[in-house]
């Protein structure tokens, strides 16, 4: 069995308003940071998982992302995978 470290990034789809991102952008400007054109907040999920090779692990992670980690009505996801 191989073990992998997976980092999943879940983001609101571009068409979905991100009020928390907007509020943070507003605070960033108040802090004095200049030039911020856009600020959006997502989630990062770290998973350690084992399986028979990368393909099998990718299948499991795809299922998790599609059915649980993200709500694909409003969110997109991507992930990176590193063999341990």
């Amino acid at each position, binding site marked *: 069995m191989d073990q992998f470290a997976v980092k999943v990034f879940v983001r609101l789809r571009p068409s979905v308003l991100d009020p*928390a991102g907007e509020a943070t952008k507003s605070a960033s400007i108040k802090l004095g940071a200049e030039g911020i054109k856009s600020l959006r907040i997502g989630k990062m999920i770290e998973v350690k998982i084992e399986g028979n090779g990368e393909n099998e692990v990718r299948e499991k992670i795809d299922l998790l992302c599609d059915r*649980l980690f993200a709500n694909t*009505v409003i969110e997109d996801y991507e992930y990176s995978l590193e063999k341990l």
Partner: protein
Amino acid sequence: MDDFTVGIVVFPGSNCDRDVSWALEGCLDIRTKYLWHESSDLSDVDAIVLPGGFSYGDYLRCGAIARFSLLINALEEFVKSGKRVLGICNGFQILTESGFLPGALTANKNLNFICDDVELDIVSSKGGWFNDGSEKQTIKLPIAHGEGRYYCDSDTLKKLVDNELIALRYKNNPNGSSFDIAGITNKKGNVLGLMPHPERACDEIIGGTDGLFTLKSLILK
């Protein structure tokens, strides 16, 4: 009809379960039974309410964890059989997360947790949830949510409109919901999800009775 029983689903974090029971039993004389989310036996209930609250602490997304409970798995057959399911607030979120209703509910546009009475237009009486036979096309119900902004893509919105699945729209959209949507039904009409709380509007002494009809309609066949 005397033995008609409404099941009220209880998740860890549900907090409107007792209010729903009070409204059904105390105001409408309809028998209720609490259903722990780990139960998958729905054989002795005739309709189901998914009450408001914060199931699983709203972890990940509102309703995202609850949809994997044994009870929600058993709900598909129940819904297929035509029996009625009402999802209020967190219950509505669970119904969208689990795919019984289209779209999703996400953070209010202004990020506030909004606790207020809102005016609602009855758009469709599909399923008979709101058609009280009177001329009244506007009702007033309380809302209490931080993540009640209904979102769907334009194709889904068209389907909702074309199939008359939009049950309620806010008169003054409080949370940024697409098309002012406050509640929708499935195509058959036997599943209703809404953000407002009908169970909190069942007695004049607490500010109104506009929620009575919707709860009473749980006993419709």
